[in-house]
C-alpha cells in the first residue's frame, strides 16, 4: 500500500508542540525517499494498464505537460480575492488558510463575499485570536459547517501562543494547528511558501482519473493515497504554488464533472481518456465522462414503513427514538418497518417492533393479553389513510399510514408526560413513550417525516368515513 506522507501520526499534537519543532523537521526530509518504491510500482501499474500512460516515464513529456498546464493557468486563472496576496513576493499564509478553509465543501461564488467580510473584520491572525467565538460565528453565519469558524479561531490562538503569531512553513507543524489537516497544510505550505507538496482536492482526483483513465473509486482512502502519490510525482517542484492551483483550476473550470471542455484543455494531448475517445470516435462523455468511476458505495436505499396513528380521545401515542442515529431523541409515531431495499424484514425483526408496541399499550392499561391481541388491533381496526414519501439522507422512505382509534370505553392511562418502561425480557430495550395532542406535537421534537404523516392525517380528517353514515 502506498503511504501518504500527509497522514502524520502527530496530527493531534498538543499545543506545546513548539518544543518539538526541530525533531519534526528532520523527519520530514527522509519521507519522500521512503516512497520511491511505491512510485515505481505506481508508474508500472499505470503504464502496464495502458501504454498511452507511458509518457509518465519520459521526463521530457512530464516537463512539457507541466509547462502547458502552467502556461494555461497564467493566461486563464480566475481573479479571486484570495489570489491577490499571491502577487506579493511573500504571499500571506493567513489569507490562504482562510480561503482554503472556507472553500471546503463550499462553492467559490458563495465564499467570495464571506472571505472579504472576514478579512475586513479579522485582517490578521492577532486580530482573529483576540476576537471571541461569538464574533467569529457572526461573521461566518450563513456559510455552513460552523465548526470551521471555531477551528480557525482556535488555530489563530494556537499560532499566537506557540508560533509567535507566524504561520509555520513546515507541513507537520502546520498540521499541529487545530483545523489544519493534511489538505489545508499542503495547500498553505505549497501556495504560501512554494513547498513541493501536491494538493489534492476532488478536482485534482477527477483530473488525474481522466488523465490516466484510472478506474479506482476516489472515495476510498487507499485509492486517495494512490492519487496523492501520483499528484506528488507530477508536481512541478519549482513552482508548486502555481502548479497546484493550476491543477485545481483546471478541474474547477475545464475538467468539470459535467460539460467538460476537452477542446480547450491545455493537457488533452496527454489525456488518456480524451485520446481514447478520439481514437474510437465515440462521444467524449462515453469515455471522459465515465471518470472518476462511480461505485455508488452509499447507494440510495429505500425503506417501507407502516406507521400507526394510535389515538385515544384526542391524544396520539408517540415513542422516543432512543438510538443514537440521526433521528435519536426525536419523537415518532409507532411504526413497523416492512421492507428494506425491497426485501421483507424477517419475522423476528417485525416481531420486535410489535412487541415494543404491545408493551407500551400494556403499560397504559390497554387490555392486551399477548402480541396476538395487538396484531388483531393493528390489522383489524386500523384504517389506511394514505401514504407519504420522504427522502431521509440517502434513504427513500415510503410511509404507509394507518389510523387506529382506541375505543373510548377502555380505561387508559393517558398522560402527557414521558414514561419510560424497562424491558421485561433482557433483550427488550427500554422504551420511552408519551401521549400528545396535535397542538402539543407542534412544539415537540418531531422528525420531518412524522410531521408529514400528521399533515396527511389532518387532510384526511376532513374526509368523512362511509361507515359513519351507514351501519
Amino acid at each position, binding site marked *: 500500500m502506498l503511504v501518504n506522507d500527509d497522514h502524520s501520526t502527530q496530527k493531534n499534537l498538543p499545543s506545546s508542540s513548539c518544543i518539538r519543532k526541530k525533531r519534526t523537521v528532520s523527519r520530514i526530509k527522509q519521507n519522500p525517499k521512503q516512497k520511491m518504491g511505491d512510485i515505481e510500482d505506481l508508474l508500472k501499474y499505470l503504464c502496464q494498464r495502458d501504454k498511452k500512460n507511458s509518457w509518465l516515464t519520459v521526463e521530457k513529456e512530464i516537463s512539457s505537460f507541466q509547462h502547458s498546464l502552467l502556461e494555461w493557468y497564467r493566461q486563464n486563472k480566475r481573479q479571486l480575492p484570495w489570489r491577490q496576496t499571491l502577487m506579493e513576493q511573500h504571499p500571506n499564509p493567513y489569507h490562504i488558510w482562510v480561503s482554503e478553509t472556507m472553500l471546503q465543501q463550499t462553492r467559490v461564488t458563495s465564499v467570495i463575499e464571506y472571505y472579504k467580510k472576514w478579512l475586513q473584520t479579522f485582517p490578521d491572525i492577532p486580530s482573529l485570536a483576540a476576537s471571541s467565538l461569538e464574533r467569529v460565528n457572526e461573521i461566518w453565519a450563513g456559510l455552513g459547517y460552523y465548526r470551521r469558524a471555531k477551528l480557525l479561531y482556535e488555530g489563530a490562538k494556537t499560532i499566537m501562543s506557540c508560533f509567535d503569531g507566524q504561520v509555520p512553513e513546515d507541513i507537520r507543524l502546520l498540521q499541529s494547528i487545530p483545523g489544519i489537516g493534511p489538505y489545508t497544510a499542503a495547500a498553505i505550505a505549497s501556495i504560501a511558501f512554494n513547498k513541493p507538496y501536491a494538493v489534492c482536492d476532488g478536482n485534482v482526483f477527477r483530473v488525474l482519473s481522466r488523465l490516466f483513465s484510472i478506474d479506482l473509486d476516489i472515495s476510498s482512502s487507499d485509492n486517495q493515497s494512490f492519487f496523492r502519490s501520483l499528484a506528488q510525482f507530477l508536481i512541478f517542484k519549482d513552482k508548486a504554488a502555481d502548479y497546484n492551483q493550476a491543477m485545481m483550476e483546471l478541474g474547477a473550470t475545464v475538467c468539470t464533472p459535467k460539460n467538460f471542455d476537452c477542446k480547450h484543455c491545455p493537457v488533452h494531448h496527454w489525456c488518456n481518456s480524451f485520446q481514447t475517445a478520439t481514437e474510437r470516435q465515440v462521444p467524449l462523455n462515453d469515455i471522459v465522462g465515465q471518470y472518476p468511476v462511480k461505485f455508488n458505495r452509499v447507494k440510495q436505499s429505500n425503506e417501507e414503513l407502516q406507521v400507526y396513528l394510535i389515538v385515544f380521545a384526542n391524544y396520539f401515542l408517540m415513542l422516543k427514538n432512543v438510538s443514537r442515529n440521526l433521528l435519536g431523541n426525536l419523537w415518532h409515531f409507532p411504526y413497523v418497518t416492512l421492507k428494506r431495499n425491497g426485501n421483507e424484514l424477517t419475522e423476528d425483526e417485525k416481531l420486535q417492533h410489535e412487541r415494543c408496541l404491545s408493551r407500551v399499550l400494556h403499560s397504559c392499561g390497554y387490555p392486551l393479553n399477548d402480541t396476538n391481541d395487538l396484531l388483531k388491533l393493528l390489522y383489524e381496526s386500523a384504517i389506511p389513510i394514505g401514504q407519504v414519501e420522504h427522502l431521509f439522507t440517502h434513504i427513500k422512505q415510503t410511509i404507509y399510514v394507518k389510523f387506529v382509534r382506541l375505543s373510548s370505553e377502555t380505561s387508559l392511562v393517558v398522560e402527557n408526560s414521558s414514561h419510560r418502561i424497562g424491558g421485561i425480557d433482557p433483550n427488550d430495550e427500554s422504551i420511552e413513550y408519551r401521549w400528545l395532542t396535535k397542538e402539543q406535537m407542534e412544539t415537540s421534537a418531531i422528525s420531518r417525516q412524522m410531521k408529514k404523516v400528521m399533515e396527511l392525517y389532518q387532510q384526511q380528517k*376532513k374526509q*368523512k368515513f*362511509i*361507515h*359513519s*353514515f*351507514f351501519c
Partner: protein
Amino acid sequence: MVSKEEQNSSSSFQFEARLTQASLIKKILEAIKDLVTDANFDCSAEGLSLQAMDSSHVSLVSMVLHAQGFEMFQCQRAVSLGINLASLTKILKCAGNDDSITLRADEKGDKAEFVFESQSQDRLSEFELKLMDIDSEHLGIPDTKYSAVVEMPSSEYRRICSDLGLMGDTVRISVSKESVKFQVDGDIGKGSVCLHPSSVVDKPTEVVKISLEEPVDMIFSIRYLNNFAKAAPLSDTVTLSLSKDFPLQVEFKFGEQMGYLRYYLAPKID
C-alpha cells in the same frame, strides 16, 4: 360424490346462473377491482349482489344483478362467494365478450365454477376459482329522499372527473335548479365545469336532467369520483344523488330490470 347419471334436470348446485353476455360481468369487475380487492358475491333467490367498502372506508360499492336479468337463475339456498377480484379478473380474461357465462357454486362453498361458451357453441371453457373467507360488515344503506338528483351522460361524468382531477384533489359539487357545477381549486389554479339541463332532447343518452328539492353544495375527493368513472362503459347515463351531510350516490343502471352498480362516497368537510 354425485355421478353424472344421478344428476337430473334440477341442478346439484346450490347456486347456478347463466348470463348471455360475459361482457356485463367483465365490465362490472373492471369498474370495482381498483376500489375493492376482495368481496363477497351474495347469491340469493332475488339475484346476485355485492357490497364492499374500499380499504380506506371512504366509499362503498353496491352492485345488484336481479335474478330476472339472467338467462337462467337457480338458487337453492343463499350462499356467499368470497372472491379475490384480481383472481376473478384473470379468469374473466379467458371469456370472450359475446360468450355466455355460467356461474356455479356447490354446497361445500370452497370453490366457484365458471363456464364460458361461445355464441356458436363450438368453444367451451371451464374454470374453477378457489373461494376465500372474507369477513366483511354489511352496511345498511337507508332509503333516502335526496335533495338533488342529477342525471347526465356517463361520458360527460368521466370527462369532468378526469379533467378536474388533473387540477386538484377535491371537487365542490353545487346543484341548483339551473345547473350543476363542478369546481376544483388546486395548486396551479382553479377551474369549474357547469352543466345546464338540456332544453332540446335529440338523443336521450345526451340528456342532463336535474330534479331538485333544495340546492346542495358539497365537497368530495376527486380520486374516488375518478375511480367510479370506470363504470361508464356499463351505462350511457349516470345519476348523481346528493343530500347535505350525506354520502353522494353515483348510480349506473344496467338497463331495464337488470340491476345497477352504485357507489357511495362520504363527503369531505370544510
